[in-house]
């Protein structure tokens, strides 16, 4: 028998009560292999006002491009110091910060290589369904051939690519803009 998926509802403003226990701003343990990065950004609404009640979740591969999940059958090593999951709460100024390692590339459609990326889900008061997006890494030539980025209109791709922080070596900046001219690209899964 076929069932119908349960309808989504907003997290509302008070989700911290239920979700804070699994807060994870540090995705990589000390022993994790790979290039360390800190990501800083803000979530901004349609009035240009920072959103103080949002939460991001991150899912990523390890530095070898392997996901810690039974459906990843690639012959690549797991890294016991990288689960790959992060849950990040924005602060009262709408700002978020997390640290991790840059993932390796993973296969995409037709076995085309995907550029290193983080899968991001975004939840907040006002969002009846969570949003899907990705963060890519700056100065990586693999971005040019990435099969997912290439589905995005060329003039909007930059919204998915972090930039080097001008004043903090090793840190990246990536803002999530909910509306307007520089609106971040959000995805619908399934082509």
């Amino acid at each position, binding site marked *: 028998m076929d*069932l119908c998926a349960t309808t989504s*509802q907003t997290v509302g403003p008070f989700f911290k009560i239920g979700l804070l226990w699994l807060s994870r701003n540090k995705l990589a343990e000390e022993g994790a292999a790979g290039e360390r990065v800190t990501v800083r950004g803000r979530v901004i609404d349609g009035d240009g006002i920072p959103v103080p009640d949002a939460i991001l979740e991150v899912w990523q591969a390890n530095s070898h491009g392997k996901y810690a999940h039974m459906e990843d059958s690639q012959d690549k090593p797991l890294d016991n110091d990288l689960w790959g999951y992060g849950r990040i709460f924005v602060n009262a100024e709408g700002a978020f910060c997390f640290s991790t390692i840059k993932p390796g590339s993973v296969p995409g459609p037709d076995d085309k290589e995907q550029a290193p990326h983080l899968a991001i889900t975004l939840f907040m008061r006002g969002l009846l369904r969570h949003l899907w997006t990705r963060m890519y890494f700056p100065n990586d030539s693999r971005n040019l051939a990435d099969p997912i980025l290439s589905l995005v209109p060329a003039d909007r791709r930059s919204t998915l690519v972090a930039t080097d922080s001008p004043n903090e070596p090793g840190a990246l900046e990536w803002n999530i803009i909910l509306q307007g001219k520089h609106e971040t690209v959000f995805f619908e899964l399934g082509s």
Partner: protein
Amino acid sequence: MKPVAGYRPHDPGTQPNHLHPAYASSIKRAPTQPLVHIPYTLTEITGPSFGPQLVSMAACDLTRQHKGEPLGERIVVSGRVLDENSRPVPNSLVEIWQANAAGRYCHEWDQHDAPLDPNFTGSGQAVTDSEGRYRFVTIRPGEYPWGNHYNAWRPAHIHFSLFGPSFATRLVTQMFFPGDPLLPYDPIFNCTADEKARNRLISVFDWQTTLPMNALGYKFDIILRGRDATPMEQ
């Protein structure tokens, strides 16, 4: 790598649009550009795995997290997590949060003039068993006013967050109670066009899980997206 099997698209009208003007907070936060459709890749069909060891047994009884008993009507909320192909979803993390019996959240931003309960936080976690089952003991949450429009009141509800087997099956929803007179007036409950889909958010009173002399039982099954029957060729 073999082509990955994606998930079934949602039935039309069974999920809310991002913009739902009756819910005022959506107006400045819903995307205005069309969503970009992307195929399922290894990134989306994998996700964090949770074992039963992640949460303590005590985390599913919200009435025993403090020294004393919380005020209000004790209830048992239980059900199964299944996918659209009717298969149980084991090892799914289920997180809940809710207001206390007076309709007040244990959160610094909740300014509703109703008392906090020192014996109730309103936060619980469980991991589904091999048959996809979960069970919480809690207090029936109170209704409460909010600022969406003049004389706006939220019906009694419990927030649910679930993961399922992959990042693609992530779901956050709300469970409501049968017979709540506020349901027809709630813009959040009514954001979904399909009436049947909407009504499936209402739990069902259940004698089987009602504990004699102790707590009423409410059943709430949750359906996560199911896999496409065949792997995509593209």
